[in-house]
C-alpha cells in the first residue's frame, strides 16, 4: 500500500565535535598528520570504531596547499580499508555536513563522519583566494579577499549601518573568548589599515587547522551522546557571482537559508556565525535578526581562528558542543563561502527539553 503523505523525516543530530588548535604554521606535519588526532578525538567521543561509520564526507581545497587531489591523501587518516562509503566537497566542511545530513535523511546510513581541514601557511592566502573569483572580469585584477571585504565594510559605513569603533568592538568581543583552540585571543591591537576601512583587527588570523563532527540518526544519536544536538533544519543559498549586482550591505541568501532552516520560528540563544571580517558580523546579525540577548560567537568565531574550509564546519560543531554541554537549548550555526558572503548555509540545532 502506498501513502501520499511523505514519511516523517528522521531526526539527525550532531553527537560529537573535535577540532585542532589553529596555528600560523604547521610545516612539520603533513595534512593527514594534522588531521588524524582530530579524527581520533571525535570518533573516541562516541565510542564508535572507524569501521562503524556509515558515511564519510570531507571538505578541503587543493588551492590552499597548491597540490591536486590532496584530499585523497588525507583519506589515509580515516582508515579507508576495507572500502568505505565516502565523498568530498571542494568547499568548507559545512557543505560536507549538508551532504552527510541528506545521506542520513535518505536512510542509507545511520552515522556519518564529517571532517574538514585547511593549511593556508604554504601559500599567500589573500592571493590564493583570488582564484575563486569570476575568471573573465574580476580574477585578472587580483582583488584579494581583504580588499573585497573592505568594499563591503565601506558600503556598510556609507549606509550608516556601522562605523569603525563598532567594528573594533566586534573584533575585541570575538577575541575575548576562552576557547583554548583559538589562534588569536585576549587583547589584540586593532592595528593599522590593511585595506581601508579594515584594520588588521577586523580581519581573521591566517591559520592551519582541522575540525570534525559525527552525525547520527534517531535512537543511534541517543546511544552515542547524552544530549544530542538535533539538526532541526539546514539550508544553503547562493547569490549572484558579480559583486556589483549585489547589495553588499545585506545578505538575502543568509536570510532565506535561515527561514528555510526554521531559524525564525522560535528565538535562538546562541549563534555561531562564520563572519571572517568584523563587518560581516554586522551584515549577518541583521540578516538573521539577532538581538543583543543572543550569545554570538562565544567560541570567538572566525576572527579568533579561521582555518580555511574548516571554520564553517567548526561553527556547527561549536554550536552543537554548547548544546552537548547544556549551555544552549537552541542554537543557530552559519557558514559562508566565496567573497563578501556570497554563499551561506544556516543550520538550527536543538537539545532535548530539560
Amino acid at each position, binding site marked *: 500500500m502506498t501513502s501520499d503523505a511523505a514519511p516523517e523525516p528522521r531526526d539527525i543530530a550532531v553527537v560529537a565535535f573535535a577540532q585542532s588548535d589553529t596555528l600560523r604554521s604547521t610545516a612539520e606535519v603533513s595534512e593527514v598528520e594534522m588531521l588524524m588526532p582530530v579524527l581520533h578525538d571525535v570518533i573516541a567521543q562516541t565510542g564508535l570504531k572507524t569501521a562503524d561509520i556509515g558515511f564519510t564526507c570531507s571538505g578541503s581545497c587543493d588551492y590552499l596547499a597548491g597540490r591536486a587531489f590532496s584530499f585523497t591523501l588525507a583519506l589515509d587518516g580515516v582508515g579507508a580499508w576495507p572500502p568505505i562509503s565516502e565523498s568530498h566537497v571542494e568547499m568548507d566542511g559545512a557543505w560536507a555536513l549538508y551532504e552527510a545530513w541528506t545521506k542520513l535523511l535518505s536512510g542509507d546510513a545511520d552515522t556519518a563522519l564529517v571532517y574538514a581541514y585547511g593549511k593556508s601557511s604554504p601559500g599567500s592566502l589573500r592571493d590564493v583566494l583570488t582564484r575563486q573569483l569570476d575568471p573573465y572580469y574580476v580574477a*585578472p585584477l587580483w582583488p584579494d579577499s581583504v580588499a573585497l571585504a573592505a568594499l563591503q565594510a565601506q558600503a556598510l559605513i556609507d549606509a550608516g549601518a556601522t562605523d569603525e569603533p563598532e567594528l573594533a568592538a566586534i573584533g575585541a568581543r570575538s577575541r575575548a573568548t576562552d576557547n583554548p583552540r583559538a589562534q588569536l585571543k585576549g587583547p589584540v591591537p586593532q592595528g593599522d589599515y590593511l585595506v581601508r576601512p579594515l584594520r588588521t583587527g577586523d580581519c581573521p588570523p591566517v591559520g592551519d587547522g582541522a575540525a570534525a563532527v559525527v552525525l547520527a540518526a534517531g535512537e543511534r544519536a541517543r546511544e552515542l551522546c547524552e544530549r544530542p544536538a538535533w539538526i532541526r533544519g539546514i539550508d544553503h543559498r547562493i547569490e549572484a557571482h558579480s559583486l556589483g549586482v549585489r547589495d553588499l550591505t545585506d545578505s538575502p541568501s543568509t536570510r532565506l537559508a535561515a527561514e528555510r532552516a526554521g531559524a525564525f520560528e522560535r528565538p535562538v540563544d546562541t549563534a555561531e556565525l562564520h563572519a571572517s571580517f568584523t563587518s560581516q558580523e554586522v551584515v549577518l546579525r541583521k540578516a538573521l535578526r539577532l538581538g543583543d540577548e543572543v550569545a554570538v560567537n562565544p567560541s570567538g568565531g572566525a576572527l579568533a581562528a579561521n582555518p580555511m574550509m574548516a571554520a564553517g564546519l567548526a561553527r556547527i560543531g561549536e554550536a552543537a558542543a554548547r548544546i552537548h554541554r547544556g549551555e544552549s537549548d537552541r542554537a543557530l550555526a552559519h557558514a559562508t563561502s566565496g567573497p563578501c558572503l556570497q554563499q551561506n548555509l544556516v543550520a538550527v540545532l536543538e537539545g532535548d527539553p530539560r
Partner: protein
Amino acid sequence: MPEVLKAPLVVEFPFTRSLGPVQSAFLTGLRERVVLGVTTRDGRTLVPPVEYDPVTAEEISDLVHVGTTGTVTTWAWNHEPRRGQPLDTPFAWALVKLDGADTALLHALDAPGPDAVRTGMRVRIRWAEERRGAITDIACFEPYDGDDSTVTVHAGEFEDPVHGIVAQARLDYTYSPGRAQTAYINALAEHRAVGERCPACRKVYVPPRGACPTCGVATAEQVEVGPAGTVTTFCIVNIKAKNLDIEVPYVYAHIALDGADLALHGRIGGIPYDQVRMGLRVEPVWSEGGRYPDHYRPTGEPDADYETYKELL
C-alpha cells in the same frame, strides 16, 4: 627531530578561456574603447554584462552602450598593491556604476590618497595604451569632474571580435612534505630507504606518509628497507616527456623494496625495455651527487617467486 624540508613551489597556469557572445562583445568593446552592457527583460542594464539574468536565470543578449564615466558606489583604499593588481602605486578598489548602467563594475581607481576618494564621486575610465580584449584594457578609473559621457557608437558588432582570453595565474607556495616524508627524502640522499611501520597492522610503508591508510593511525616506527627490491608490475613508456632526457621506450615499474609492504615506483635501466618482467630483482642507482635514485637496474639475482610479492601488486 631534524628540521622538515621546505622548498619553493610555483603553480603557474595560462588558462585559455573561450567567451560566449555577450562576453566576447564586451571585451572586444573594451579593445575599441566602448563599454557595453546587457539589458534584462525588466529593463535593467548590467555592466559588466552576463549571459543569464542573475535574478531570473533567463538568457539575455541585448547589448547596449553605456558611458565611460560613472559614479563610485563603494571603495576601499589599498595602500600596498599586490602582484598582479592593476596599479603598482597605492590606489582605491572601487565599484563603479557607469552612466546608463544599473550595476557596478569592479576596478582600480587611481587617486592621490584616501582623502581624495568618496562614495558618490565621479570617475572616468583611463584606457590602457595597448588593448587586446580583456578587462585589463581598462587601465583603471580616474577622478573626473567633466560632463557625462555621450554614447556615440551603436550595436555590439565589431570586426575581428575576440573569442577568448588567456588568464594567467601564478601562485607561490612553500612546500613542506612534513615529518615522515622529510625523513624519507633525507635518507635517500644518504643512499638509504626508510619506511614507517604501522603500530596496528605492522605493515611497512615506503615512502611513508605518516599514516596507515588501512588502520587510520599514525605510523612512527622507522624501518630501513631495501636497497634491493622486486618488480611487481610495469609499463613501457613510448612518449617522450617534456624536459626529460630519457630515450623512449623505457620501463616504469612498481618496485617492492625488500622489507616494504607497499611498492614504490621508479624507472628501470640497464636492461633492454622488452626484457623487463614481473619478479625481476632490481637495485637503485644514484647518479653523481644525486639526492634520490636515478633509476633501478637488475641485481643479477634469480627472479623472485610470484608468491613472495603477489600481495604487493
